């Protein structure tokens, strides 16, 4: 317990320096600014804003990136409530009741309760991370390459099960992602693999290039296809602070949502995406009058938003303790950390405690910032929402070009975001979900490395993966999950969850 407090105070000592406070603030602000734009999800936002953190020291850069992430999340909720365009899967649920509230002139209350619920959830999640960080890191230190490989397999299976649409296609996407990660020089033998003899592919495909192409450029092309009407709320935003009645209705859903979201977020393989759905379903089940849901029930905003934020935050746990990104956003964080020369994993906490605890403390600071900046700035976000897409997308396009060019000063990188944009567009057209591919890409190198080591230790015997108990357990969980997901009855339920 003493550790817990001394660690947290070390963290706050780092997070509360003037520079880092400023970076957290700036991150939240620009994150919201970009995230609020319709059709730009958190992944695209982070990919686009990644370059602006390059000039900073690693701690500052990660604090700012975390701020950008929360900002983008909150921006997505704002868009969902005001325009009914959810930027990503997790804010789909918020749009259901949030937009109805907005149409009833209660947009302010919806945004307010979303911010307050998120702040509460963020506070709890920060404490959860601080409490679980150290023990999980110790656990990670006893993991060998065999266990790591199995753990990553389990994470990928989770990602498959939780991806939208066909399971077969999700598996294919993961495999393609891992396959893409093997492009470039083989670390062990130094031989070039699948590079077409092109020098800029010798180091492999750049992660930022892939992410920006698949999530930034492909999104633009996809949005241009759809002529959706943008349903910006015309009503007044109304007062922002919920009144006593609102609080009475909302506080229990916030508590439950936080609990559900925090637990699901810890799971490897994008468990966080389930949080809002689970919370919404639960609130609807236990409500006295379930018919109010879908017609502007405040519980339908408070619960899922809290679950969303709690999950968004606890999904840092697998990354920070085990070095395994559970979803595409965390994969981007890995990319950012590697650029700053930090290899995510258990050693970060021991070797770099100021960075580790500083980042955790700044998560809480970031949540507070969101509360402080977003509520007064709602008017500005509304104006931003009214910028027509025909002006928005060229700006995003140029921003992507400059951003990716500034990373390596390579014109080929810029061309490749165009190429991967086209690839991503085709994937979307053929009904493939690109997020699992990105996850497979990020885990691919780690997996190959650990597979190699595990097999060297076991002298080439694949049985090592089922002989070692921890590894066998992880693989068993993965297998059971996959089988369950393929059972026809569960599959129907899964489809319903994602189409609701």
């Amino acid at each position: 317990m003493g550790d817990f407090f001394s660690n947290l105070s070390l963290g706050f000592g780092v997070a509360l320096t003037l520079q880092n406070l400023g970076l957290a603030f700036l991150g939240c602000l620009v994150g919201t600014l970009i995230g609020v734009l319709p059709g730009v999800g958190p992944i695209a936002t982070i990919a686009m804003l990644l370059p602006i953190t390059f000039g900073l020291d690693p701690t500052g850069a990660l604090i700012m990136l975390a701020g950008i992430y929360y900002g983008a999340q909150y921006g997505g909720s704002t868009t969902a409530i005001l325009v009914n365009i959810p930027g990503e899967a997790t804010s789909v649920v918020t749009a259901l009741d949030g937009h109805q509230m907005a149409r009833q002139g209660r947009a302010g209350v919806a945004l307010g309760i979303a911010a307050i619920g998120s702040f509460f959830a963020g506070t709890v999640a920060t404490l959860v991370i601080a409490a679980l960080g150290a023990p999980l890191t110790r656990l990670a230190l006893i993991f060998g390459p065999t266990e790591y490989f199995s753990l990553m397999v389990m994470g990928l299976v989770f990602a498959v099960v939780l991806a939208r649409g066909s399971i077969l296609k999700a598996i294919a996407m993961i495999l393609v992602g891992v396959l893409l990660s093997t492009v470039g020089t083989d670390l062990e033998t130094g031989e070039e693999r699948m590079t077409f003899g092109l020098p800029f592919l010798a180091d492999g495909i750049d992660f930022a290039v892939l992410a920006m192409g698949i999530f930034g450029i492909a999104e633009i092309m996809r949005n241009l296809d759809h002529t959706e009407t943008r349903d910006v709320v015309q009503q007044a935003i109304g007062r922002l602070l919920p009144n006593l009645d609102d609080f009475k209705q909302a506080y229990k859903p916030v508590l439950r949502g936080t609990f559900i979201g925090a637990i699901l977020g810890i799971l490897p393989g994008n468990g966080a995406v389930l949080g809002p759905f689970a919370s919404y379903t639960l609130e609807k089940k236990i409500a006295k009058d379930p018919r109010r849901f879908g017609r502007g029930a405040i519980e339908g905003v408070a619960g899922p938003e809290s679950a969303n934020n709690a999950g968004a935050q606890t999904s840092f746990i697998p990354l920070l303790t085990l070095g395994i990104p559970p979803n595409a956003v965390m994969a981007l964080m890995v990319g950012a950390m590697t650029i700053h020369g930090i290899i995510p994993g258990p050693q970060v906490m021991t070797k770099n405690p100021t960075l580790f605890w500083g980042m955790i403390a700044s998560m809480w600071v970031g949540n507070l910032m969101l509360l402080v900046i977003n509520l007064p700035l709602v008017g500005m976000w509304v104006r931003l929402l009214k910028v027509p897409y025909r002006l928005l997308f060229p700006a995003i396009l140029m921003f992507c070009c400059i951003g990716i060019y500034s990373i390596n000063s390579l014109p080929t990188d810029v061309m490749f975001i165009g190429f991967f944009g086209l690839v991503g567009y085709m994937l979307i057209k053929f009904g493939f979900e690109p997020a699992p591919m990105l996850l497979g890409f990020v885990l691919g190198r780690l997996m190959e490395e650990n597979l190699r080591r595990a097999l060297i230790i076991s002298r080439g015997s694949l049985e090592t993966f089922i002989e070692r108990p921890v590894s066998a357990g992880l693989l068993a969980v993965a297998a059971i999950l996959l089988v369950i997901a393929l059972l026809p009855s569960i599959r129907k339920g899964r489809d319903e969850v994602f189409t609701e």
Partner: protein
Amino acid sequence: MSTLHEGSGPARPGGPVRAPQNIAGGLVLLALAALALWLTQDLDQGTLNAMGPAMLPRWLAIAVGLSGLALLAFAFIKHGDALERWNLRGPVFVIGGILAFALTIRPFSFGTLTTPGLGMLFAGPLAIIIGGYATPEARLRDLVILSLSLTPFCMVLFGDLLNLPIPVFPQALTGLFPSDWSQKAVLRATAAILAVAAVIVFLATRSRHRGPIDVADHSGRI
């Protein structure tokens, strides 16, 4: 523009193919697998004890190919989505804009041909204006104003505030500025000129257009 296959949601295509989208997806996966297998054919696979460079890519390629085959097979058994309409205008102009940026930001040579490095001064507006035509609703005037105002903003943000090494000005024209000016001074001057140009274009063309620019079109599209 071009329509590969007309199809809208629930309409079930006739013939043995029940899920055209999955046929296309399966073929793409097969092609990818074949490409990967061809590219790794000369590499050593090694043994499990000492994995060679080709081990993982080759087995992954086979797995990808198998998924492709499975998708193809299911396309004849289970009903699925039809192929969506393809709109070529979006991708063509978006990629055109990106290519224009990549080729003009700094000298780029393929073979004997070298493009002039024009810097952000030209690359930025080119990307915005060419890319902007990806939508049929594009208006040249708006795009010009947008590019003239966003480019200096990005110059100051990336070049000045964030200190990222981005060429701002065409190398051939650096003689236009006094030789004792620093890089930053040239950058700021260029940004200022662009911003002024944006205001001039905005004011000069305002009279011909009714209504304010940049206004929300409430019927908006995304």
